[in-house]
């Protein structure tokens, strides 16, 4: 990849949790690594909510800061971080594209090249989220509808875990935040298209990010990051991004599982609550 001359050095890999972000990162890893993926050393560049990275650059302990204070500082940490980079970095993010208490975006737009927003049918996210969080289908269903839904929330809004609290919001609000608010280019990639039409879908993302890759390299990366490959690696060696509570990270990788997992009321409620966005992305 040619050395970057301008300040736009970050590509955000944004998604609501359990929407295919890890799969996309595995694809990128394979693409940058001659078609090889080792799930426990993905070659993308960490997660936005990484507390260790923040502490390295902020010179004060984030443990001594409130969540609100961290959110007011984090964009500047990434500006500084980006200024040190010699090549494009791909950073996962589950936070909604929101503002801090003073009204400034927590994501620094000026150092961003673009964002890949990975979207998945919310009906299918429910079961996957329940598996990941080791909670009931009903609890996961409520998370998707909860406007205040946060990941890695810590008691008293403290900052003591490896990741900061991530304000995700409900599914529709998350999609809207990333697709309507940023001033940088955002492409929406459907999980279902990654599954049913992988070559065209991944090629589109590669072109959008401005990466150079031949059709053969893209095909090889798709092959190396297939669900079967990732899942078999997890069975063999485990996966460090799996939560302690969850049995396995890579569950089924299919679409339409919701038909077996959700009850009628849950289906109707999700469709009603998220109708606008579900229609927009052909889930209705």
């Amino acid at each position, binding site marked *: 990849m040619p050395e970057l001359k301008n300040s736009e050095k970050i590509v955000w890999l944004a998604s609501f949790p359990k929407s295919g972000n890890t799969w996309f990162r595995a694809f990128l890893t394979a693409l940058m690594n001659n078609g090889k993926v080792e799930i426990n050393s993905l070659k993308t560049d960490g997660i936005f909510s990484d507390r260790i990275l923040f502490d390295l650059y902020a010179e004060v302990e984030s443990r001594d800061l409130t969540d609100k204070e961290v959110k007011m500082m984090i964009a*500047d940490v990434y500006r*500084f971080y980006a200024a040190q980079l010699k090549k494009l970095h791909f950073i996962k993010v589950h936070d909604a594209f929101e503002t801090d208490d003073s009204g400034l975006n927590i994501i620094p737009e000026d150092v961003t090249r673009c964002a890949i927003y990975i979207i998945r049918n919310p009906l299918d996210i429910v079961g996957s989220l329940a598996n990941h969080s080791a909670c009931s289908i009903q609890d996961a269903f409520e998370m998707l509808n909860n406007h205040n839904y946060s990941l890695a929330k810590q008691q008293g809004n403290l900052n003591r875990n490896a990741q900061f609290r991530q304000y995700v919001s409900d599914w529709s609000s998350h999609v809207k935040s990333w697709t309507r608010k940023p001033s940088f280019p955002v492409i929406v990639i459907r999980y279902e298209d990654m599954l049913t039409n992988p070559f065209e879908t991944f090629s589109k993302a590669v072109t959008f990010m401005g990466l150079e890759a031949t059709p053969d390299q893209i095909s090889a990366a798709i092959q190396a990051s297939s669900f079967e490959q990732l899942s078999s690696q997890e069975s063999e060696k485990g996966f460090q991004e799996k939560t302690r509570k969850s049995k396995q990270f890579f569950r089924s990788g299919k679409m339409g599982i919701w038909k077996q997992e959700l009850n009628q009321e849950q289906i109707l409620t999700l469709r009603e609550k998220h109708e606008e966005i579900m229609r927009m992305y052909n889930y209705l």
Partner: protein
Amino acid sequence: MFRYWGFGLNILSQIEFPELLPIAFDKEDVTIEIGITPLKPEGVDFVKRPFSYIAEKEYILNIRNVCRYYAGNGSKIIAEPVPGIDERSIRLFLLGTVMAAILYQRGSLPLHAAAVEKNGKLTLFAGKSGAGKSTLTALLASKGYSVFTDDICVIHSDPEGKAGIYCTASYPMIKLWDDAITQLDGDLYTREYKIRPELPKYEQFFFENFNSGQLPVEKIFIIHPTGLSQNIDVIKLNTIKSFRQLEQQAYKNQLILSKKLRAVHFSLLSKLTQHVPVYEITRPQVGTNTAQLFEAIKNLL
């Protein structure tokens, strides 16, 4: 004005510091005042970081919505608080990062370590924030050790030129999280003074047994929580590894810029690793309690 001892220095301060040791002195080493901080360092030779400017003899730190700080020439601190901010918050960052800047400007080596004392000798527990230094130190206080310092140990050569490495404490206070107090003997520690109004972390003072002298270092443990560890493991490091690891434990080592300062640290750490055994404790990121940590090292203490 208030007069205190802290970090081995005589401090004359406009701000009251309940954390520091009140003493009388004629000549101060450091002054602390409330005032207007410079926008940036005077010279052109400085590094700009997200919230700070670092030059060899100047440091400016801006914590949005809390306070802006200036540390100059190893002898002067100016705090410019945001109107309405509580004093605890102003003091917390001043006694951490800003004092570290002062110590570096003076050519000292503040190590990110807690220490306990027994028979006039020190055992240091180094490690990043959250490693468990303070809680282990607090536990050892109930097992025949005296708490010497929490969080920062100032390292120096023997003032009389003898072999060995000596340490000065920061100040007579240890900070414990709410859950650490629960884990330890609750009667010994209080939840009276929060370090910041928003945080359930509490100041524990030990003025009565405080030792502000320079004591020799007997051994060092470096605590590393890691996601990859399943168990608590303790290994003795060889000299080279000890040096490398301790170099990383310099408090806020991002602030160390000058070659001169690096050379001073190199010499101190070389001497330290030649004379003092260094052990590395790796422990799981979550699920380790302090009693288990103590069990793992008690034979080495």
